[in-house]
């Protein structure tokens, strides 16, 4: 099942709608990494509200997405990790270190807005 990726101003929003196979997750990763350049996006939100399981593979892929997007010069935030999923991830020792998370889409957008370009300080060339 392909994950729709919506362009919302300077951001991309990937809204996972249902359980994903490993291949779906990798397809999502590749699509986001590609589209962030195509649309010159400054931020990516991955909404995992609909995921009832985040195992080691899903967690690893989300971490990969975040780091790959960062290498592309944009910021990613994972939103909507459900309470039961968070509980299981902690039991498993999956911490998602270095990966920004937010409660929901609204908080995710607020996070990216705050991260926005800070001229002079962290501004890097955006050509890609």
């Amino acid at each position, binding site marked *: 099942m392909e994950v729709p990726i919506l362009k919302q101003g300077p951001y991309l929003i990937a809204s996972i709608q249902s*359980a*994903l*196979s*490993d*291949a779906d997750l990798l397809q999502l990763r590749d699509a986001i990494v590609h589209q962030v350049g195509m649309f010159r996006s400054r931020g990516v939100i991955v909404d995992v509200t609909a995921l*009832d*399981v*985040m*195992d*080691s*593979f899903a*967690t*690893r892929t989300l971490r990969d997405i975040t780091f790959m997007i960062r290498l592309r010069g944009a910021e990613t935030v994972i939103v909507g990790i459900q*309470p*039961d*999923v968070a*509980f*299981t991830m902690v*039991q*498993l*020792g*999956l911490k998602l270190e270095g990966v920004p998370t937010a409660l929901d889409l609204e908080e995710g957008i607020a996070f990216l807005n705050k991260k926005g370009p800070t001229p002079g300080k962290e501004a890097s060339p955006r050509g890609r």
Partner: protein
Amino acid sequence: MDGEREAVTLHPATSSPVTHGRDLVVAEAAVQIRGDTDIVGARQKGRMLAATLGFSSSELTLIATAISELARNIVQYAKQGEIILRLLERGGQRGIMVRAKDQGPGIPDIRKALQDGFSTSRSLGLGLAGVRRLMDEFEIESRIGFGTTVTARKWKR
């Protein structure tokens, strides 16, 4: 090494003596694992079965995640195998058994495979150690060249 057999049975110190033989099987289902899409099917089936026992939603998520890790191990190391799900009764307690069975290469060093962070593949290396942490009982039997069977159980509190 060929044909060498190693079996490890791990129980929490507090658990009662091993009584697999006396577990009453209330229901059983098997899911064939041939590729990564079957992983999703296996964990959904397991969640559905476990839900009939009245597990809490966080316990259902733990069980589904454990099934996911076990099924992925099959795909990654053995290419194919099966996940057997059983609803059990043991001395008035009810629970679910998840068994992952394959005819893959086998695990050369089970103790090492159970260490946190150990992985010969490209996951986070939390597969087996993680499953062991999520479930109440955990056993592995592996024979080089013949395959691996991992059995895990979770009892309803």
